């Protein structure tokens, strides 16, 4: 065995899924980090032990999907405490959540539902980010959502909303480049202008993922179930040029491929980093 060899290497990580755990533990591929959905590790399952095992070799990023920071009600304190307990065990390199809501009045809908972008929702969202950062004892990165609907009442462009949240709360931004592409395509805005509107100093991580086209309605769906699409790689290069060498995650959550396919995607992202470094 080659224990002691530095495994963590580079700036690109992959989402960790159960079917790949043994292979990663055995092959110990060179990766910048591993990222998991925090909610999948809040129970005392053997999966948590395996994650803590891999944590010895790789930095881990905890990506929350259910804190529901945009809910027009109190944050779920119990969930916040479970998240905090997990952070204490995993000691993650990054902790992130979403600009979205997913639970209201006791029902958790397991989706990242959109907020109207208004002064009122901005105040509420910032209060919740403050409360979450206080409760978790960690700075959060907030991810831009992929959207399929916009509200008539929205008055603030999303990138401006994200920027204001970062400005008021001190949180960072997780820029999901695929989400920018998906939303830009669905609503017909310029994705590069969106990237340009985000504050460089706040960007703490980039997500890359695949999407699919819902032919019947002519909409892009962010399903994390395919290779990163060509236009998204192009947008990623632009993001790296603007934001610098930001840690990047390859997300793949449905139609899970072999580990080799994921690692190839990660290598592709590393090449983009090198290309931008050289330039």
């Amino acid at each position, binding site marked *: 065995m080659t224990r002691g060899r530095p495994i963590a290497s580079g700036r690109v990580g992959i989402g960790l899924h159960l079917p790949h755990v043994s292979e990663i533990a055995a092959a110990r591929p060179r990766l910048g980090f591993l990222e998991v959905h925090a*909610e*999948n590790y*809040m*129970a*005392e*399952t*053997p999966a948590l*032990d395996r994650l803590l095992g891999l944590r010895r070799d790789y930095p881990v990023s905890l990506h929350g999907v*259910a*804190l*529901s920071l945009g*809910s*027009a*009600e109190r944050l*779920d304190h119990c*969930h916040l405490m*479970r998240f905090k307990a997990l952070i204490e065990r995993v000691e993650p390199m990054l902790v992130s959540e979403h600009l979205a*809501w*997913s*639970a*209201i*009045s*006791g*029902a*958790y*809908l*397991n*989706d990242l*539902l959109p*907020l*109207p972008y*208004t*002064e*009122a*929702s901005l*105040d*509420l969202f910032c209060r919740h980010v403050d409360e979450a950062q206080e409760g978790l004892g960690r700075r959060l990165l907030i991810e831009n959502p992929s959207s*399929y*609907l*916009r*509200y*008539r*009442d929205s008055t603030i462009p999303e990138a401006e909303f994200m920027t204001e949240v970062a400005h008021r709360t001190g949180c960072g931004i997780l820029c999901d480049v695929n989400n920018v592409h998906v939303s830009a395509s*669905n*609503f*017909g805005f310029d994705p590069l202008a969106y990237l340009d509107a985000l504050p460089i100093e706040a960007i703490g991580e980039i997500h890359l993922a695949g999407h699919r086209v*819902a032919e019947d*309605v*002519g*909409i892009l*769906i962010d399903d994390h179930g395919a290779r990163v699409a060509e236009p998204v790689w192009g947008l990623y290069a632009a993001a790296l040029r603007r934001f610098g060498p930001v840690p990047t995650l390859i997300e793949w959550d449905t139609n899970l491929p072999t580990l080799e396919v994921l690692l190839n995607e990660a290598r592709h992202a590393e090449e983009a980093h090198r290309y931008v470094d050289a330039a």
Partner: protein
Amino acid sequence: MPKRRTDMSTLLELQMRLRRAVLGGDTGEIVAAIQGDGLDPAARVGIYRHHAFTTLGDALQTTFPVVCRLVDKRFFAYAAHEYLRQHPPHSRCLVEYGADFADFLARFTPCEKLPYLADVARFEWALNIAATVGEAAPLHAETLAAIPPGKAAYVALRLQPSLSYFASPWPIDTIWQANQADEVPPVDLASGGASLEIRRVGEAVSWRRLDLGTFAFRTALADGLVLAAAMSAATFKDPAFDLTVALRQVFSEGLAVDFGRPGSTSRIRELATERQERPNSSTRSHYATTNDMRCWSLQL
């Protein structure tokens, strides 16, 4: 502040409308708030609705794979859909979703031709609990032995949090096991019921059939009854029930993790210490609290 309250109630109302549209499918209340952007707003809501139902349905299928196999995937998706509408998850951890799915199936008329289906769901839920709850450090038998003999009958034990006790008139474990194979072997449904103990052992989930006396004893302990009451329950099922043997097994199998009721734990420890220090002392205060007596009388 009043303005903020108004804004919040507007946002809350919007979110409640979208919740009703996602869960109930009636988009009438929400469409006016959504921009068309070249597509029917209801179709836009449908994308979120589809995602919520697909992923939550998948979560249920992961927790209840044999139920799904018994009814086939399409029917399971239909049952899951109805369940989701009526019982959306409270917990944001999906492994914790489905606690009352078995009760739902028991009342779900389209399933009435499969009378054992709800119990298969109960069994799979117990397996899920055991898979998601870790083992606690077991209590040593000496701790109980240190309690004065006259008091031990009124001690309650707290058992491993991963434990479930579950009895069915159907051979649920056999049905479950048979459905692990590609080709399901025939199961004799008339072969009788099963009284099962399901628990976590290290990284594994284990289950076993218990004899009626042991099952009644352990179920009573799990329900928080004191030893005397648990013994009474066991003897009722099995007149030859042997408390000493049964207790030894509870401890040797690492089932007990603490004394019951946090309030009484310190008193038990105190009694145990008293006995070690002054073996002949008569106890001044009585340990048998009203609660314990109530447990006892419930058994009668």
